[in-house]
């Protein structure tokens, strides 16, 4: 008897769920303005995706020139600004300029789209509005190209950090490694660091480090702007 009653209640719940689903589907009306908006959005995205202007300077001399220019600015002008600290703001400006050039050259300017479209779909779900298929400006190749470049940048940073630590160790104990003092691990001698920086030089150093961190991900796209291997390159590598 109780079992039968339970089954009837379960059936009623199932019927109610079906009704709710049906009503939700009916509520998902596509308004004409929404349809028009989607069409316009699709056209804009298609234009962004296919327009040659936004294709970047991949495999062009422009890309190579921008890469060389950014190296010259970061290291060359960086050294000059370090020696002449009154130029620190010029240094910052030039770093920003080469950063923008790098960003344009690899279509990185549209990198924000992933987050915004996710936020859009979440808010749409909240208001129970029927959402269309998610369109993105960057396609999967471009996204993987970016991820590959970031992966390479990370690898470079790890290597550079290791080098910097070794450099700092050698510098701190230079008297022991290159001088006459004898090194012993018991007791470990103190490392000696002595340098003075002016306010301007400190600024230049900060701009240099932040500029390097920002530029490294663009350098990781390579001179050609393509972090993927071509088939011939891959086969060559396997044969070597």
């Amino acid at each position, binding site marked *: 008897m109780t079992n039968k009653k339970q089954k009837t209640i379960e059936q009623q719940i199932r019927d109610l769920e079906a009704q709710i689903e049906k009503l939700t589907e009916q509520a998902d009306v596509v308004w004409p303005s929404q349809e028009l908006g989607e069409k316009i959005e699709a056209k804009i995205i298609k234009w962004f995706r296919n327009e040659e202007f936004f294709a970047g300077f991949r495999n062009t001399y422009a890309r190579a020139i921008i890469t060389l220019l950014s190296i010259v600015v970061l290291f060359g002008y960086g050294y000059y600004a370090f020696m002449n600290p009154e130029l620190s703001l010029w240094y910052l400006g030039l770093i920003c300029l080469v950063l923008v050039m790098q960003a344009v050259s690899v279509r990185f300017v549209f990198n924000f789209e992933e987050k915004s479209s996710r936020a859009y779909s979440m808010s749409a779900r909240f208001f129970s509005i029927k959402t269309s298929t998610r369109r993105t400006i960057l396609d999967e*190749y471009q996204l993987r190209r970016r991820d590959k470049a970031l992966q390479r940048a990370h690898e470079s940073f790890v290597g550079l950090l290791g080098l910097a630590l070794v450099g700092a160790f050698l510098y701190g104990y230079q008297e022991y490694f290159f001088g006459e003092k004898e090194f012993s691990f018991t007791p470990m001698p103190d490392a000696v660091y002595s340098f003075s920086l002016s306010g301007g030089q400190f600024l230049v150093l900060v701009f240099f480090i932040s500029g390097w961190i920002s530029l490294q991900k663009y350098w990781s796209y390579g001179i050609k702007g393509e972090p993927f*291997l071509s088939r011939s390159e891959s086969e060559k590598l396997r044969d070597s």
Partner: protein
Amino acid sequence: MYMGRKPKADEELIYNKLEQVRTKAKMTRQQLAEAVDVHYQTIGYIERNEYSPSLVLALRIAKALNKKVEQIFSLEDN
């Protein structure tokens, strides 16, 4: 022998007959790209075996060309 930084072959390439199948279907790269919602250069990279597409994109391409995915993509160079 590689000069400079040695690149890593960390991605196995998938061979494909996309160019042949697409030409047979009388579609341009642009048309196929629009059908599968990617940039037309991406189709070129796939055709030249410079990029292995995701399973989703491979399935979409096969659907757009009215073929089975294994008729276009394979692990061996046939």
